[in-house]
């Protein structure tokens, strides 16, 4: 079926480019395998199985695909860590634990187009020679888990999964594994621990990549749902052709999940780097709500650093003659790709854009984010376990009108002592919001932190009182001598 005849119940914006979301909201589309097969489904799997695994890895490397989960790590490089002559079994895990606040793309892929994900997963398994794969889906998607179970059973019936896939001699099995509401399971080593039936405590690095030591101490590839879907399209188009979408080093499409104070929140799949922040807000999302102006944007999920509407950013830009020149831009000119968002001091993260207008109280906003992280810290590292709760208690107190002079500095101090001092990136994730909110909206925090610092209470014992000859009377009196 050609794209021209596709009609949608919620039509894509003309500036969108639908690759992964091609079938989302499509009229007449269902998530069963017959519909998928009639639309050319599993053709790419046939093509992939005819290729050598190494060729697929090479195509993915050529495509420049970067992971869509948050860190933006090149997928082909990650796959390349698996040795072709690996003796241990290799596992592949699909990270469908979508739980970064502001992100909601995986829900639609799983609910409306599960076979696209499964096809991408089987191709990826073949490429890295994984015979057993797990699809780790967050516990809050019970319906999604059922849809995937059914889709996997259908794929098994059609010979796309199981023993001797399509007569190639390649065996592969995929199982759905449900999480149970813990955000930390999105961290790949935490996810692996969880999949091993333990608490999701992220593992100490090195090894930096589960591709070296992962599930059951074997090489393991962990990829995001969206990343695995892209693999299918890379096989179909070829890596070089795929790399033409987007910009160099920021190839392919990206699903932006916009939420907050805009006219049309929702999901928009765009070519990476084809739109600026202004175009995303004005063209795709229809601008701010009536009578409101933009105040702040969190561009890549709640852990990304916040951007203030009136900030100016200095970017180093390559000129035609190869030299670097400074260019100053405003928030509206920020190009929505991995590199530009990193250059302005934030990150593209998971693609969740949260927009706040001038009616929003930044102390309240940060308090809400802090409550999330205080709840979700796994508790393994002291700076994060204690610090995330301290930050939440501090913003609670400011919000309740009890903020004391110096609270903004205390907040910053606590946050500064978490980042970089923990086993996993959750430390950064929970301190970046506090650091950036306090830095960029300092006046809102100081205006409500005006109470005097209470005088220190006297200690229970003074140092001198602990010296033997001045020791206080034992609290329960002198014990009677034994008869």
């Amino acid at each position: 079926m050609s794209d021209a005849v596709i009609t949608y119940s919620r039509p894509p914006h003309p500036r969108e480019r639908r690759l992964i979301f091609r079938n989302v909201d499509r009229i007449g589309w269902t998530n069963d395998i017959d519909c998928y097969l009639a639309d050319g489904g599993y053709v790419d799997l046939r093509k992939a199985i005819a290729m050598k695994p190494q060729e697929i890895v090479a195509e993915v490397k050529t495509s420049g695909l970067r992971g869509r989960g948050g860190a933006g790590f090149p997928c082909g490089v990650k796959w390349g860590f698996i040795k072709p002559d690996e003796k241990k079994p290799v596992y592949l895990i699909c990270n469908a634990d979508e739980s970064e606040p502001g992100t909601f793309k995986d829900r639609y892929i799983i609910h409306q187009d599960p076979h696209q994900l499964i096809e991408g997963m089987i191709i990826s398994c073949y490429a890295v020679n994984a015979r057993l794969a797990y699809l780790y889906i967050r516990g809050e998607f019970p319906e999604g888990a059922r849809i995937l179970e059914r889709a996997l059973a259908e794929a098994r019936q059609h010979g796309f999964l199981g023993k001797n896939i399509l007569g190639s001699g390649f065996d592969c099995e995929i199982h759905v594994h449900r999480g149970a509401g813990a955000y930390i399971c999105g961290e790949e080593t935490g996810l692996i621990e969880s999949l091993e039936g333990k608490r999701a405590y992220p593992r100490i690095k090195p090894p930096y990549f589960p591709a070296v030591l992962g599930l059951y101490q074997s090489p393991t590839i962990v990829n995001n749902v969206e990343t695995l879907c892209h693999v299918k399209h890379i096989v179909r188009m070829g890596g070089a052709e795929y790399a033409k979408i987007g910009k160099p080093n920021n190839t392919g499409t990206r699903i932006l999940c916009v939420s907050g104070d805009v006219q049309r929140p929702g999901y928009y799949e765009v070519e990476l780097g084809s739109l600026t922040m202004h175009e995303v807000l004005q063209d795709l999302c229809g601008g701010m709500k009536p009578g409101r102006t933009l105040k702040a944007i969190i561009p890549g999920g709640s852990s990304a650093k916040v951007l203030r509407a009136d900030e100016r950013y200095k970017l180093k830009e390559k000129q035609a003659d190869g030299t670097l020149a400074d260019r100053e831009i405003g928030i509206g000119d920020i190009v929505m790709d991995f590199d530009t968002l990193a250059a302005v001091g934030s990150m593209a993260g998971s693609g969740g854009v949260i927009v706040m207008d001038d009616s929003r109280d930044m102390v309240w906003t940060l308090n809400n984010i802090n409550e999330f992280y205080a709840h979700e810290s796994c508790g393994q590292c002291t700076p994060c376990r204690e610090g995330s709760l301290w930050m939440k208690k501090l913003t609670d107190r400011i919000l309740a009108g009890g903020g004391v002079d110096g609270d903004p500095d205390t907040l910053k101090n606590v946050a500064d002592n978490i980042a970089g001092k923990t086993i996993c990136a959750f430390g950064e994730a929970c301190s970046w919001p506090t650091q950036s909110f306090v830095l960029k909206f300092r006046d809102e925090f100081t205006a409500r932190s005006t109470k005097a610092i209470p005088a220190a209470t006297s200690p229970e014992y003074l140092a001198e009182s602990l010296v033997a000859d001045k020791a206080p009377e034992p609290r329960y009196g002198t014990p009677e001598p034994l008869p």
Partner: protein
Amino acid sequence: MEIPADFQAQIDEAISHYPVSKRSAALPLLHLFQEHFGFISDESIHWIAAKLDLQPIHILELVTFYPMFRREPAGRHHIRVCRTLSCAMAGSYELKRAFCTSVGIDPHVVDHPHTGGGPHIHTSPDGKFSIEFVECLASCGSGPVCMINDDFHENVQPQRLPELLGRYV
């Protein structure tokens, strides 16, 4: 504790998904037990531990770590309202309060579910509904959102509640 044959079959099927390590089946089994019995009892913990050749503490530590597992029964219909930023901006605190008043739960007890101790889940006096204020349900573009049992509902404005709750009798 009675384990019916079909439930036993589900358990064995779940364990068969993990040929390398039975321990991996701990989470799937906990889900099955919670769906079957409504909550995770001490008895269930001991049963699962014995089944997977583990110590009971290995199961208990999961129940206390993962927020979705509960040690006490919830109401007949369990409501989860999303608390996190985008939904809160769209009015999830108001929604949660409206849910509480509609089903007869003191709205203030659920305000800060994650700090200060106390139960996370509050049940209405008639035991029909229970409510929990949870973190991000991953549908930020259509907030406020909630789940009632396994059903997901988006753009839930408080005026929709009578109709919505009427579906669960």
